[in-house]
């Protein structure tokens, strides 16, 4: 009888983390930026049909990188959770924090359970507050950890290069066009020499405080993105 190989828990977790990180780094990046009227999401995504940025609820937006089927699954779960909460309590009782917590629990338990492979995804969950100071952005990683994003952030792809680029370019109170511009420029900084990503290859959406409707999520058309980049 042969003894099973001993693998230390540290090594096991490290292997799982490496696996997830490699998967996430293979894709393109998504940037999130707080601007004057709300929160901006910009993703490099040539596909018109397969989205990386989505509406979850009235004031909650979602952006993801990594494996499409996994984050799509999480997106739908988030919409179901939000709609169920809003239906059984009230629309005001659906919060970004609650959603981020549910995602964290889900990703965390999948990551540490031996039975399932870890999800190769990272998510941004953003919630528009009443005032700009109340806007919240959460970054969730494959292992279920949650971090607050203060002003702007990038995940996926070569975010080690693109995120510092965005952070350096960021200033408080940006208008929408400038915010789109710095996000698009920083997403192109993943290789040397820097690339220029065309408007057609960008997926752009905002949570816009100035919208009069209760649902604040709005996609920005390719033409408007092109105008902002010009």
């Amino acid at each position: 009888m042969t003894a099973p190989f001993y693998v230390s828990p540290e090594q096991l977790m490290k292997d799982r983390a490496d696996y997830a990180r490699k998967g996430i780094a293979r894709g393109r990046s998504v940037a999130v930026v707080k601007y004057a009227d709300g929160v901006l999401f910009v993703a490099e995504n040539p596909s018109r049909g397969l989205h990386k940025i989505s509406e979850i609820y009235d004031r909650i937006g979602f952006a993801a990188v990594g494996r499409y089927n996994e984050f799509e699954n999480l997106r739908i779960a988030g919409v179901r959770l939000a709609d169920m909460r809003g239906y059984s309590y009230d629309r005001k009782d659906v919060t970004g924090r609650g959603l981020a917590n549910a995602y964290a629990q889900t990703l965390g338990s999948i990551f540490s359970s031996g039975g399932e492979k870890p999800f190769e995804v990272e998510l941004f969950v953003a919630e528009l507050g009443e005032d700009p100071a109340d806007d919240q952005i959460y970054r969730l990683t494959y292992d279920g950890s949650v971090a607050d994003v203060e002003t702007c952030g990038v995940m996926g792809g070569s975010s080690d290069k693109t995120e510092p680029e965005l952070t350096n370019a960021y200033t408080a109170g940006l208008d929408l066009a400038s915010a789109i511009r710095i996000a698009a420029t920083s997403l192109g900084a993943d290789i040397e020499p820097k690339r220029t990503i065309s408007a057609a290859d960008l997926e752009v959406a905002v949570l816009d405080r100035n919208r009069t409707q209760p649902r604040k999520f709005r996609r920005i058309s390719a033409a408007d993105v092109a105008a902002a980049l010009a």
Partner: protein
Amino acid sequence: MRLDGAFLSVGSSSFVDFLATHDPTLLPSAKVPEGAAIETTHGTTIVAATFDGGVVMAGDRRATMGNVIAQRDIQKVFPADEFSCVGIAGTAGIAVEITRLFQVELEHYEKIERTVLSTDGKANRLAALIRANLGMAMQGLAVVPLFAAFDPSSGVGRIFAFDVTGNKNEERSFHSVGSGSTFARGSLKKLYRHDMTEAEAVTAVIQALYDAADDDTATGGPDLARRIFPLVSVITSEGYRAYTPAETESIANVVVAARMSQPNGPAAPLT
């Protein structure tokens, strides 16, 4: 909480289907009561009419419980989404819950599929929700909605009526449901023209509600003392818009003033 089971399962884009697997107790149809019929709050008359480029829906503000006026300012016309609205007659508590569920159903589909349902698709979903309430309808707790939508693909306003079994029936020009509907429909029959403008159609539905209130005790007319007027909503290519109380009041004032000299309202030509 961890999202698992029904949340992560590959399912349909329907919120109702999701609730049915995850938590069926939240569905209005899960609560069929036993025992004899009880007295509940009833919403009364809803009217709708199409006009050139859209559709208008209006409801009186009265809710009754037996012979008592339960509420003088109830809201019975609700937006369902950007291009459709629902007016409800029947048991108020269940009607409001079904409307809320219908609103979530449309928004849920839109978010999951990233496209809106067709107008017929929306009407069919509402029919299914009404049919699911059949058990309660047989206990005397019936809900009869009227559904109006602007169809962006054809550019016209459309009206759908339902019975308690969810039988869907598209009305071409105008329709009414609720206790005063017989009188409102008779009134609209004489006032309706196919080439009406929005303002004319709104005046016509307010006339129809006045006639319903004139002959049906459960329908409330314009309450001049409390300044409570019918709720009017229009849907055009610009989307859903509810008239402000001030807008409705000015139209209702004209209608009421004319009735002072002609209590039966405008007369249609004999031939």
